[in-house]
């Protein structure tokens, strides 16, 4: 049955070569923990991606209940956390996933650095990876404000003060991020848009480039 559906699509669109392009590549021995246990350090990249997938999915579901408005944001988070079945788990996944993705990414960065995998010809992929690092930190910063509780609000106040300390552009950057002089309604709307549309868009684009380059260049050789 499944085979027939596949054949039907394949006849029309010739997807077998595409599929083989994705699936057909070998994994060398030195990154396979089954051969050398120390190769588990090569897992951190994959785990980072896994947590990112969890973040994207749980985030999509959370927006079903969340409203980015200072009157109702807190109420809606409180509602989804305490009234909605499993809302606590899904919010927990998003909350703890945010921390885990940073831990995993940090470990992945260290692995790539200490195996010297960023050297020629993989310079570009390293740069894309560092940009991904910034994007994820940005997602963490903007997401932290969204529940609009005390912790969120004051952490953002401090964060924007740090941005303001930058010379020349500091004041401008702060107002741009906060959407005005006051950290309030406009800030929340802005942070929501950045957290849900702008940064995830950048994240997906950069991830695509990251994976494309890995496939094109292959995993760096053994030390």
């Amino acid at each position: 049955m499944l085979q027939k559906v596949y054949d039907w699509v394949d006849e029309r669109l010739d997807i077998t070569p595409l599929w083989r392009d994705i699936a057909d590549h070998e994994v060398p021995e030195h990154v396979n923990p089954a051969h050398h246990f120390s190769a588990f350090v090569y897992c951190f990249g994959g785990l980072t991606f896994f947590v990112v997938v969890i973040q994207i999915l749980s985030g999509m579901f959370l927006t079903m209940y969340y409203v980015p408005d200072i009157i109702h944001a807190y109420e809606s988070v409180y509602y989804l956390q305490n009234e909605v079945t499993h809302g606590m788990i899904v919010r927990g996944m998003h909350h703890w996933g945010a921390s885990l993705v940073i831990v995993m990414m940090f470990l992945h960065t260290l692995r790539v650095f200490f195996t010297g995998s960023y050297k020629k010809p993989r310079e570009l992929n390293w740069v894309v990876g560092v940009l991904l690092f910034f994007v994820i930190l940005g997602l963490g910063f903007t997401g932290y404000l969204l529940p609009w509780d005390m912790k969120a609000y004051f952490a953002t106040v401090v964060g924007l003060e740090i941005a303001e300390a930058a010379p020349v552009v500091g004041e401008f950057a702060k107002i741009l991020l906060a959407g005005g002089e006051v950290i309030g309604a406009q800030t929340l709307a802005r942070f929501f848009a950045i957290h849900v549309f702008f940064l995830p868009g950048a994240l997906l684009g950069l991830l695509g480039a990251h994976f494309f380059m890995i496939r094109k260049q292959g995993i760096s050789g053994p030390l």
Partner: protein
Amino acid sequence: MSEKNHRVSRRQFLTYTLTGVGGFMAAGMLAPMVRMALDPALEASGGAEFVSVGLSEDDLSEEPQRVDFNVEIVDGWYTSEQSRSAWVFLYEGEILALSPTCTHLGCTVNFGTNEEYPDQFFCPCHFGRFERDGTNIPGTPPTRPLDVYDVEVRDGMIYLGQINQRG
């Protein structure tokens, strides 16, 4: 390694296991999320609370009187007040509270405003008429009786609950 020597090749076996593990992961991730999304649909809708309409039992008579009252509508994290009306009167010794919403197209019915039928509810939009007990009169547009409120008497005061359809 040839593909045809075994009924299930090693590669096929691995692919099946892979699909199984992938399915497990997808289910583990999605189960709480989907349950959360389905929550409003699965939640049993509790009956509406009873609300006092500010009338005591002694105020009632056979003559329908219109009462306006407010109910609290809880919509997730948002609570709002909605005003409702009812025609309350004694019918064969029982307290009857009818919803004034015409069952034809949702206009508001009045009692006794049509001079030809002083003892009936009358809808001015399409001339729908109802008996005193809310039964629709055949030959007029409405096809079912007026809805009734659940009625409760507490300490001699009238409380109205949720609206029920009849017929």
